[in-house]
């Protein structure tokens, strides 16, 4: 891999130990994947924040680093709401470690608005063709697919290294040839709302880590695409997808139709919704906001909960920045007894571990809750989740059709 003179100096340790290791990480990954050089990035988004996932090992490594990031950098969700952790019964020991992790990142100049939707943050916009080093799987999918920016699936240390250097190795999704669709997916039924998450859950299992191009009859909103990508990145490891006539690269570039064609039918999506009927128990926790709720989603939750009272534990996840931007939605949600939780999510917080059956409207949460939280997960659209939370209408399929 070609390095500039300045990069070689960093590699030989002239810019200090932290940067020497950072460039060594990028060069090693570049060599493994056949990169020709390092390229500048516009921003970094760093995973490896929850104490539940990185533990003492991660805390030690981050605490030992020195210096300042060279590009805007922000964090993935942590294991708890950083301001109001006691409300979800997080232990003081966990809270102490979690605060130390976030503090260690802050010392490096990283913004600590812990969110899986960094593209909603002020001053953190990404545009078509921008090179990024992001590491949250749903944010990667959104950046690549919905924005048309370019990022690989970075791990925590490589995203942090990229932030410290302002560069990443030029391989994978940074290159045109790896962004071409490899499999075509036709969806025969019409789709609305949580159908996109269910579709992503089904599609991810089939396509693994390949790049799909969807043919969909409807025109999805950005939140629909967010849900689709998040689910595919969880049930599979899809980092980039296209939707014909919708996503920017599918509109601008003339992709050849892939040879492999898959058809997804209504009955496959129904199976996801039927998790509600299959569950051996009633949900004891309702969660919305995986990935973190957008302004439009907060508005919808607020409308659905308006004037009602929840009878089951209900958590709505969003970023702190959006919480502060929309106090009127927050007020009407919290008046119902549902809790707005920031900086974290149902998957990476230990708070979820004390429940046995979690109802979600997210294909990503549906995939991860069983393994990461030891709880059963059941799927329904937002309206059905709110019905369940407010003492709804008993056992039904949870579908929206």
């Amino acid at each position, binding site marked *: 891999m070609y390095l500039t003179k300045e990069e070689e100096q960093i590699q030989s340790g002239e810019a200090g130990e932290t940067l020497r290791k950072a460039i060594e*990480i990028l060069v090693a*990954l570049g060599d*493994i994947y056949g990169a020709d050089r390092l390229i500048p990035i516009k921003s970094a988004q760093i995973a490896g924040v929850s104490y539940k996932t990185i533990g003492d*090992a991660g805390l*030690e490594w981050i605490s030992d680093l020195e210096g300042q990031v060279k590009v805007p950098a922000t964090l993935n969700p942590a294991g708890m709401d950083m301001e109001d952790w006691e409300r979800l019964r997080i232990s003081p020991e966990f809270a102490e470690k979690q605060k130390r992790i976030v503090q260690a990142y802050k010392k490096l100049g990283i913004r600590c608005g812990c969110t899986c939707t960094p593209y909603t943050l002020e001053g953190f916009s990404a545009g078509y063709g921008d090179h990024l080093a992001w590491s949250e799987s749903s944010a990667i999918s959104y950046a690549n697919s919905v924005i048309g920016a370019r990022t690989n699936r970075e791990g925590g*240390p*490589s995203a942090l290294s990229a932030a410290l250097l302002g560069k990443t190795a030029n391989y994978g999704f940074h290159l045109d040839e790896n962004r071409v669709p490899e499999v075509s997916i036709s969806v025969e039924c019409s789709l609305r709302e949580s159908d996109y998450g269910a579709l992503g859950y089904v599609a991810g299992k089939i396509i693994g880590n390949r790049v799909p191009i969807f043919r969909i009859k409807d025109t999805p909103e950005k939140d629909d695409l967010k849900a689709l990508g998040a689910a595919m990145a969880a049930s599979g490891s899809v980092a980039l997808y296209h939707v014909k006539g919708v996503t920017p690269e599918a509109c601008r570039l003339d992709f050849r139709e892939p040879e492999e064609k898959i058809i997804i039918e209504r009955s496959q999506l129904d199976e996801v919704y039927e998790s509600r009927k299959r569950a051996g128990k009633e949900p004891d926790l309702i969660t919305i906001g995986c990935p973190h709720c957008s302004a439009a989603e907060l508005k919808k939750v607020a409308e659905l909960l308006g004037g009602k009272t929840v009878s089951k534990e209900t958590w709505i996840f969003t970023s702190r920045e959006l919480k502060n931007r929309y106090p009127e939605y927050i007020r009407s949600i919290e008046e119902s007894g549902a809790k707005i939780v920031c900086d974290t999510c149902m998957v990476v917080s230990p708070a979820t571990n004390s429940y046995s059956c979690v109802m979600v409207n997210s294909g990503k949460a549906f995939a991860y809750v069983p393994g990461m939280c030891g709880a059963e997960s059941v799927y329904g659209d937002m309206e059905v989740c709110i019905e369940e939370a407010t003492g709804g209408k008993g056992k039904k399929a949870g579908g929206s059709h």
Partner: protein
Amino acid sequence: MVPIKLKGRTISRGCAEGEVLLSRDPISFLGSVDPETGIVVEEKHALAGKSIKGKVLVFPHGKGSTVGSYVMYQLKKNEAAPVAIINLETEPIVAVGAIISEIPLVDMLEKSPYEFLKDGDIVLVNGSEGYIELLKSEGCKTEG
């Protein structure tokens, strides 16, 4: 014996020598290895019950969670890490873990390490220059 030198690819720099411990199974550092002691705790693993501490650890590649990189760092801080690593072909979790932990790592040797290395051999791993050298072979009298 005359030391046998084999070229490979630099993944993590540095130079160390030690006793070979071979594993034909991939290793997930998260969950498979006790970060306090370096003992492999994954049942049914080829190295189950053995300690990787101070060894030149030979395994095909890593597997499992990306948190494995941090566990390698923790092993190093607890003085329970291998002194060097040889892989068939490294993947990012182990590559990153070795770099942040300053464990020399070479992969893609010109010959398979499983063909010419045995447990107990003394090997030098030069991660900076990308080669390994067999210094002392266990029970192989025909060489040298």
